[in-house]
C-alpha cells in the first residue's frame, strides 16, 4: 500500500489530503481542513497531521508530500512544492476526469486553466492587479448591501431584472450599488446585476485560453449559487462543481505526490523521485 499527501496552505484555510494506491486503484482516503492563522508553517504541519489521523496512518507511512498554495514554501516537511494552478488542474481532473477547462475563483484572485486529458496544464491566465471576479469583490458588495456572503447567492437568484453595472472595479462598484438602491431598485436585482457583470469579466479573462467543455469550477466562489448561475448564463453551459471543490488544490498536490511515490517504487529506492530543485 502506498500513501501520498497534498497540503494546500491557503491564505485563510489549509487543506490536506491523503491518497492511497493499492496497485489497482487510486483513492482519496482522508481530508483535513484547518485555519491557516498567523503561523503558516505550523498550519501546514497541523493539516498534514490531521489528515494522517483521519486516514489512520502514521506520517512516516506517507511516501511523498507535495505542498501547494501561497504558503507552499513554508512546508518544511514536504518533499517538493508545486503551484496551485498545476494542482487545481490536476485536482479538477481527479474530481471530474472529463474536465478541459478549470475556472478557479478564490478570495484574492481568479484563474482560468486549460487542461489536457491527463489533467496536465496546457495554458492558463490570471487576473492582473484587479480584484474583479474574486471573493474580495463579492465581499465588498455584500458589505454595501449589509448581507452575509452565504446569503448573497440564494438572494441574487430572486432578481428578475438585473441592473447594468458601469464598473467592475471592487472599489467603485460601491457607488453603482448605492446609486441603484437610492433609485429604489430591488437589492436582488442589483446583486443579480453585479453577478452578471463579474461573470462577463471572468469569462472574458477565461477566453484568453481555449474555454472548452467540460468546465469545472473550483475555489471558494463556487459555493455562491448566484455567481455560478451567472457564469452558466454567460457561458451557456452547466458548470461541474464538486462538494470537494475546496480541496481541489490539495487533491492535485496529492496526485502529483502519488506519482512520485510510484516512480520511486518502480526505481526501487522506495523514497520517491527527488524533488524539483529550483533553488540557487
Amino acid at each position, binding site marked *: 500500500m502506498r500513501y501520498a499527501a497534498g497540503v494546500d496552505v491557503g491564505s485563510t484555510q489549509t487543506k490536506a489530503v491523503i491518497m492511497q494506491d493499492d496497485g489497482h486503484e487510486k483513492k482519496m482516503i482522508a481530508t483535513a481542513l484547518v485555519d491557516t492563522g498567523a503561523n503558516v508553517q505550523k498550519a501546514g504541519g497541523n493539516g498534514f497531521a490531521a489528515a494522517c489521523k483521519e486516514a489512520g496512518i502514521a506520517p512516516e507511512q506517507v511516501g511523498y508530500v507535495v505542498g501547494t498554495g*501561497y504558503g507552499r514554501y513554508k512546508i518544511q516537511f514536504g518533499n517538493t512544492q*508545486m*503551484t*496551485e*494552478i*498545476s494542482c487545481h488542474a490536476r485536482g479538477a481532473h481527479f474530481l471530474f476526469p472529463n474536465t478541459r477547462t478549470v475556472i478557479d475563483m478564490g478570495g484574492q*484572485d481568479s484563474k482560468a486553466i486549460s487542461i489536457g486529458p491527463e489533467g*496536465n*496544464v*496546457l495554458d*492558463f491566465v*490570471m487576473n*492582473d492587479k484587479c480584484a474583479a471576479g474574486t471573493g474580495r469583490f463579492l465581499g465588498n458588495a455584500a458589505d454595501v448591501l449589509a448581507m452575509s456572503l452565504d446569503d448573497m447567492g440564494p438572494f441574487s437568484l430572486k432578481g428578475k431584472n438585473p441592473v447594468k453595472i458601469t464598473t467592475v472595479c471592487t472599489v467603485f462598484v460601491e457607488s453603482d450599488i448605492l446609486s441603484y438602491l437610492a433609485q429604489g431598485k430591488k437589492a436582488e436585482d442589483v446583486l443579480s446585476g453585479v453577478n452578471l457583470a463579474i461573470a462577463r469579466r471572468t469569462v472574458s479573462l477565461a477566453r484568453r485560453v481555449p474555454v472548452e467543455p467540460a468546465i469545472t469550477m473550483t475555489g471558494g466562489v463556487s459555493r455562491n449559487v448566484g455567481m455560478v448561475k451567472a457564469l452558466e448564463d454567460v457561458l451557456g453551459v452547466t458548470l461541474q462543481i464538486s462538494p470537494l471543490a475546496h480541496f481541489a488544490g490539495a487533491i492535485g498536490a496529492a496526485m*502529483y505526490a502519488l506519482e512520485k511515490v510510484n516512480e520511486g517504487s518502480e526505481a526501487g529506492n522506495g523514497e520517491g523521485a527527488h524533488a*524539483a*530543485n*529550483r*533553488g*540557487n
Partner: protein
Amino acid sequence: MMEVLSPNIERTFDQCAELLRDLTFPTVAAWKQEHPGAKVIGYFPVYAPSEIIHACGMLPVALHGAGDGLELQHADARFGSFICSIVKSTLELAMTDRLAQMDGLLFSTICDSARNLAWVIKRNQPGIYVDFLHLPHNPNGTASHHFLVSEYRRLIGHLEELSGNKVTDEALRNSIAIYNENRRLLSRLYDFRMEHPERLRTWELYVLMRAGNFVPVETHNEWLRGVLEELPGRSGKKRDAIRVVVEGSFCEQPPLDLIKVMEEAGCTIADDDFILGRRWFNADIPVEGDPLMNMAESYQDRSVYSSVRHDFRNPRHKQLLEKVKHAKAQAVVFLTAKFCEPACFDYVLFKKELEAAKIPHLPLEFEEKAYTFDRFRMEVETFVESLLFE
C-alpha cells in the same frame, strides 16, 4: 569613477546592479569631472548611433527609465494612463533635473510614444538640446542607406556644433572598431551563458551589460575582458529547469528582481533580447571604407531584429524560431512591457509561429515599478511544471 571593478567577480555583478539603481548617474558625473567641457548625450533605446557620439568626443549614455526608484509626480499629468513606464519615467527624470548632466538627448523612430516623448521633453525643458533620428522603415533598395547617411550627417552637424569638435572619418573608424570590440565581447559572454548557464546567471550578464551604458565603451571593454577571464574558473550548481528564450524587453527593462525570479522559478535563460543585448548588430560594422555608409548598411542589413525594425526580407517571427533552435531552448517567455505597442503587436505574430512549430510559450507583462513578484513566480513555476511534469 568605476574604472576598475572589484577583482571579486561576485562583487563585480553587485557593483553593476548598484550602478543601475543609482539615478544620480555617478559615473557620468565622474567622467565630466575628468573631461572638463566635454559633453554627454543621453540616448533613448534602441539602435542609437553611439559610434557617432563617441567619435565626436562625447559620452553616449543610455536612457533606460528610472526602474522602481522614482515616484511619478509630473509625467502622469502629461501622459495618458495607457503609456508605457519608460516613457513616463524618462520624462520624470528630465522634469526633476536628474538628466541635468546630459547636454543633449537623442531619440529615434521606434514607436509613437518615444516619438512624442522627445518633443514633450523639449516643450517642458526648452533649454536642453533634443534631437531626433529618423531610422528608415523600408529595407528594400539602397535609397534607405543614402537616407540614413543623410540623417547621420544632419546629426553630426548638430553634435559638432554642441561639442565644438569635428567628426572625422578616422575618428568614426576608430569608434566603430571600439564598439565592434564591445559587441564581440558581449557576444562571447552570451555564448558562455548559453553553454554554461549555471556558471553565469542571466541577471549577472544583464547587469554587467547594462552597466556599460553608463561608462565609456573603453572602460566597459576592460570590464568585459576581466569577467571573461574569470568565468572559466567559476563553478555553478545545475538545477532542474527548462531552457527558454526571453523575448520582448528590447526597450523598457523589467525589474531586476523579476529576472531573478524567472531563474529561481526554474527557467534557464539561454538567450534574451534585453536592450537587444546592446549588440544591435549581428556582425561587425566594416571599419574600412565610408564609415557612415558602413553604419547605414549595417543598420539596414545586419542589425539584430526587434519589434521596432521592419524587415520583410527576413521576417522576425522566422528569426525568433532560429534563435530558439540555436539556443536549444524548449520554450519562449514573452516579457513585454505593459502598453508597449510594438511588442504587443508582435506577440500575435510570434504566438502564431510558435504554436505552428509546437514551441510552448508564456506571456508575461511587466511595468518598471513592481516590488512583489509572487504572481510572476506562480505563473513561471506553473509554466515550468507544465513542461517538466508533462
